[in-house]
């Protein structure tokens, strides 16, 4: 009998130990790629040795759903990176904490921040097309330079990008398509529906991660991908894969990489330290290595970075697309049959 | 008032009750065992003896009826709290333990101090002639030795009731005899109330204070060895124990200590005092092969012809044909001295009056 009580209590203690006695650390969700996030976060920890960061990498769509799931008891305090369409949707759902006191928020221009202080822009990125040159040689085609080009018969089954619902990259791409095709009013019109349906036929595989397409096109698994320009440069061009980057002449969509405090997060004070740090020049200089465009005007730019002047940018109502994300995704699922 | 330690009261056990394959293993079985007695449950396989034993031990549950140990109802008490100890047919020794550890197991449960354990184990092993083997792993013992270790293990805990489930079946014949005598001797010395199960009559008859003969879940007869052999209560017991010839007869008259029957034209008076029969009632006479003398044809109670003989050295067994072509077996001891009969020879059967038993016809099984 004594032995049994001893065993049971040992088990109980073990169980309790495992639930994790809370440490004084900052927990964040990040939508940056694993290797990038590691670099940024280590830099923060180096600059702030008394704070330990625990982080999970999720795509921006997944971060949004995680916040919804944890709404009653948030596990993380900061959302670092990822296409801000998800941030907008989360703000609308009341999942974010305002931080107007941040100096950075105060000096950044209005198009790159939420008016209530619920999110702020870290960087800007533009959607581009990455095409494998060996593939082009095989089919005897030119790299696509317009959204319409993507519908060419020789590209059937050769396009890859992420599911609109799981990746900010793909949702931004979708927003771009809808604005470029037919009327530029936000939302699906008849032309848009036809286009998306036709485009769907061209897609060989949808991925979960937004930037995977760049690598897959580099590897030659697929011919064409729709990815952010910084990812194309970082993952395909700079590695030396045989690829070429082009932009649609009708105009392309862009994203603001966002950051936000999570409402009810367990370590909001620590999160604010990170937030402030992330907007400094020192922090944003790091983007150079990953070819991102920092929104801190003092930060350095990488060689060969694409600037706003190099590309035609569409007048996308990002706020509208953020607000209506769920409805847009439903319609997208309806048309593509993917959900 | 007899000191009853174990009491079965209208015990019933039905397996798969309510289904098509329902089996009534024990059917209204009642039995009392007195303190210090060894009672054997004897019967063919499937008669319910092992089931009853296991119900007493607590390994099976009764469907109906009660089981009492020292007048305490134990039906719902789990086996480890019943103060019984069982010696199993397959010994059930703990293969990963030594002799000492096996025998000491029950004492360890009772938290007996180590020094005392060692002493008592040595004593108990001494009882069966296994002293000095404490450290031996039980896998290295012979079958007979294993059986004795199992016995030690059970008796050392001084249980109220000691249970034996055909403990000798797995031993070869020679060992069986010696071991059963040892068991009986120890049981008597220690005066432990015991319930013993076997299908071997010789075993039962040689060691028991009382034998309960069972068949088809029911008690056929409870009695000493002599009672069940000489005065079987019904056809089953008569037939199961020893050899029996059943000869039909008709009652002429009965009195307090005698029954007169008529058979094959002869009238015979048989000493029997416990049963009453009506006049002209058809009965069967239990005639044991050794309860007949073979004499000249005119001098016997019945005439018969020798049809077959079977010589085994110390006896010769004759198969004789009665006037109505019925066959009976008769055993003659030491034929060297008395002479051999020839096939088809006519002889007379003289029945031993005090060795016969009258059974009512149709008493195939009884309470």
């Amino acid at each position, binding site marked *: 009998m004594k032995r049994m009580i001893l065993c049971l209590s040992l088990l109980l203690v073990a169980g309790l130990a495992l639930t994790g006695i809370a440490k004084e650390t900052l927990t964040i969700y990040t939508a940056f790629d694993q290797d990038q996030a590691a670099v940024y976060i280590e830099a923060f920890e180096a600059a702030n040795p008394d704070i330990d960061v625990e982080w999970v990498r999720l795509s921006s769509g997944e971060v949004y759903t995680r916040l919804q799931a944890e709404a009653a008891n948030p596990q993380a305090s900061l959302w670092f990176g990822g296409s801000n369409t998800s941030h907008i949707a989360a703000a609308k759902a009341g999942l974010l904490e305002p931080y107007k006191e941040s100096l950075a928020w105060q000096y950044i221009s209005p198009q790159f921040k939420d008016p209530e202080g619920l999110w702020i822009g870290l960087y800007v990125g533009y959607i581009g097309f990455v095409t494998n040159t060996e593939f082009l040689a095989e089919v005897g085609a030119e790299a696509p330079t317009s959204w319409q080009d993507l519908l060419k018969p020789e590209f059937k089954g050769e396009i890859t990008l992420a599911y609109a619902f799981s990746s900010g990259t793909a949702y931004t791409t979708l927003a771009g398509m809808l604005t470029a095709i037919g009327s530029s009013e936000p939302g699906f019109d008849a032309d848009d529906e036809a286009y998306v349906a036709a485009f769907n036929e061209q897609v060989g595989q949808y991925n979960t991660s937004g930037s995977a397409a760049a690598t897959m096109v580099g590897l030659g698994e697929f011919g064409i991908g729709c990815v952010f320009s910084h990812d194309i440069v970082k993952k395909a061009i700079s590695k030396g894969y045989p690829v070429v980057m082009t932009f649609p002449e009708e105009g392309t969509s862009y994203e603001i990489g966002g950051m936000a405090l999570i409402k009810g997060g367990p370590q909001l004070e620590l999160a604010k330290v990170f937030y402030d740090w992330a907007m400094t020049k020192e922090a944003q200089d790091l983007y150079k290595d990953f070819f991102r465009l920092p929104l801190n005007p003092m930060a350095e730019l990488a060689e060969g970075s694409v600037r706003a002047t190099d590309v035609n940018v569409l007048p996308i109502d990002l706020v509208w697309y953020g607000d209506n994300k769920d409805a847009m995704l439903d319609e997208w699922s309806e048309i593509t049959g993917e*959900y | 008032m007899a000191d009853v330690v174990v009491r079965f009261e209208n015990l019933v056990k039905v397996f798969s009750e309510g289904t098509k394959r329902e089996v009534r293993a024990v059917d209204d079985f009642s039995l009392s065992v007195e303190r210090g007695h060894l009672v054997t449950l004897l019967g063919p396989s499937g008669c319910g003896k092992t089931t009853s034993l296991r119900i007493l031990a607590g390994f099976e549950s009764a469907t109906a009826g009660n089981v009492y140990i020292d007048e305490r109802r134990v039906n719902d008490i789990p086996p480890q709290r019943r103060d019984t*100890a069982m010696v199993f047919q397959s010994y059930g020794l703990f293969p990963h333990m030594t002799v000492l550890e096996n025998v000491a197991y029950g004492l360890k449960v009772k938290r007996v101090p180590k020094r005392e354990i060692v002493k008592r184990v040595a004593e108990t092993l001494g009882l069966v002639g296994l002293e000095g083997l404490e450290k031996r792993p039980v896998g290295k013992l012979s079958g007979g030795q294993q059986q004795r270790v199992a016995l030690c293990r059970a008796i050392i805990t001084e249980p109220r009731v000691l249970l034996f489930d055909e403990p000798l079946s797995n031993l070869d014949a020679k060992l069986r005899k010696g071991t059963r005598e040892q068991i009986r001797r120890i049981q008597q010395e220690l005066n432990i109330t015991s319930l013993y199960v076997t299908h071997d009559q010789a075993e039962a008859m040689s060691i028991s204070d009382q034998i309960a003969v069972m068949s088809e879940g029911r008690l056929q007869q409870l009695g000493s060895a002599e009672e069940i052999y000489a005065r079987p209560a019904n056809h089953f017991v008569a037939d199961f124990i020893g050899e029996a010839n059943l000869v039909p007869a008709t009652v002429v008259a009965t009195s307090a200590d005698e029954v007169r029957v008529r058979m094959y034209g002869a009238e015979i008076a048989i000493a029997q005092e416990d049963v009453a029969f009506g006049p002209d009632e058809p009965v069967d006479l239990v005639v044991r092969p050794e309860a007949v003398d073979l004499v000249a044809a005119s001098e016997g109670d019945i005439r018969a012809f020798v049809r077959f003989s079977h010589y085994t050295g110390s006896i010769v067994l004759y198969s004789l044909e009665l006037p109505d072509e019925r066959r009976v077996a008769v055993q003659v001891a030491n034929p060297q001295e008395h002479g051999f009969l020839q096939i088809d020879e006519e002889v007379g059967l003289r029945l031993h009056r005090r060795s016969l038993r009258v059974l009512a016809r149709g008493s195939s099984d009884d309470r």
Partner: protein
Amino acid sequence: MKLDAYRREVRGEIRRLLHDPVLLGIVAVVFVLLAAFIVFPLIKVVQHSVWPGGTFQPKYFIDFFQKTYYWRPLVNSLIVGSLVSVFGMLVAFIFAYGIARTDIPGKGFFRLVAMLPIVSPPFLIALAAILLLGNHGVITDALRLNWDIYGLPGLVLTETLAYFPIAFMILEGVLSKIDPSIEEAALDMGASKLRTFFTVTLPLAIPGIASAMLLVFIRSLEDFGNPVVIQGRFRVLTVAAYHAVVGRFNMPLGATLAIFMLLPTLMIFVVQKYYVARKSYVTVTGKPSGIGLKSTEKHVKIPIFIALCILSGIILLMYGVVLFGSFTRLWGFDNSLTLDNYRYVFQVGGQYVWDTLKIALTATPIGGLLSILIAYLVVRKRFVGRGAMEFISMLNFAVPGVVVGIGYILAFNTPPFQLTGTALIIVLVFVFRRMPVGIRDGIAQLQQIDPAIEEASSSLGAGFFRTFTRVTLPLVAPAFLSGLVYIFVRCMTAISAVVFVVSAGWQLLTVALLYEVDQANLAAAAAYGYVIIGIVLAAIVLMRFVVARLFKGGLTPLGGE
């Protein structure tokens, strides 16, 4: 009459249980655990699919039948499952027949190859398929083939190779257990070996074959890792459910999809357990006896041997290309060798290695002990509700991992049962997912022991706990310890349930592997894969060593002469 008898029996069992408080306590605790961690999550899944937010609203059920693209994944899953069970059975049969019924050389080698997919994360094979047969794969390029491995072909190929070992283990047992005198009788009566095979051997093996096929079907239906990698546009139910929950937080949709995943697997499980298994003419418990007719004719041996060589070659090629890929700088483009990928795993993923080990090493003994305890209760004890206990604990066999994952999120996401974000929830997933196999093995081990030994212990006054720890456990120890390794391996290679319950604090190697594949970092994914394989192999070797040292003399239960 029947009801009366039943009621009497139940009342008697309750009374007896009340008199044995230790047993009562243990039975109660086990029931609570089973209810909390198997039944409750399932109830939550059902609740969320038709009662989301508290109102009866089977929107997705209705949508499911009305919209093609909703039920297409279910149809796809069933198609894949059917093909995989057939092909898997065929591959397994060749291996099983070759090893159990012929005298070809190299049996040890072939058996090792057949068990290889068990010690690795199953979706490593999908990774290999892409490396070899993808649009720009090694073989595709070399042979200038113009095909698309993504979709149905890829799914069938990868799942067949990943799950045929399960069928193999069953078939090997069945084929070696067939009583040789039956076949000898047939030959004796003049039937040729071929005729004997088709009229005697094969029919006797049919229940085993059917079982094998059904179990592979279930595994295919619940496969998550392979489809995530290689399904292409051929969507299957598990990935759809995952995306519904993790991608869109659409719990009602996710729960509905989970139910549609659960229905076929439950049906198959019931059919297999209560119908096919009953018709078995040969027992499958215990070790194969090795006796029996061995085919020695060349015209049987040689084709089988060749087929086995080819199949083994394919499997080894796949594992080989992944191993090679783990050492390349840029797979497919720059094949210069480097250790960078492994450095990456231990730097970025170093914490994951520790997390995974900690969790697996916690879950393994708990799962093992709980399994043997339940096996003991079910086999040796009689108490009210025993049948229910057996059924519930085996239930997880039929529940797809994705359903378990969704169920656990739904069940343990809110106070008072807030377990999401902890290591405990991952441990629980592991413990209860692995239980059915552990219990089944435990039952087999216990049936090898003479019941008289445990009865003797009770007879001498030992209660439940003492008998279990001093007598039963030591006797099943060798097999138990080996079984622990199996649990550990499954913990290290699991993906479909745990992908839902990892968190900021606790990450697992298989999930990290999946993320790398997600981001098309194939070389890094390959490195993760081999780190997992390395840990698993080390564990297996270590346990073999430990068991050999501890049980030098061998232990056989006594059972009379």
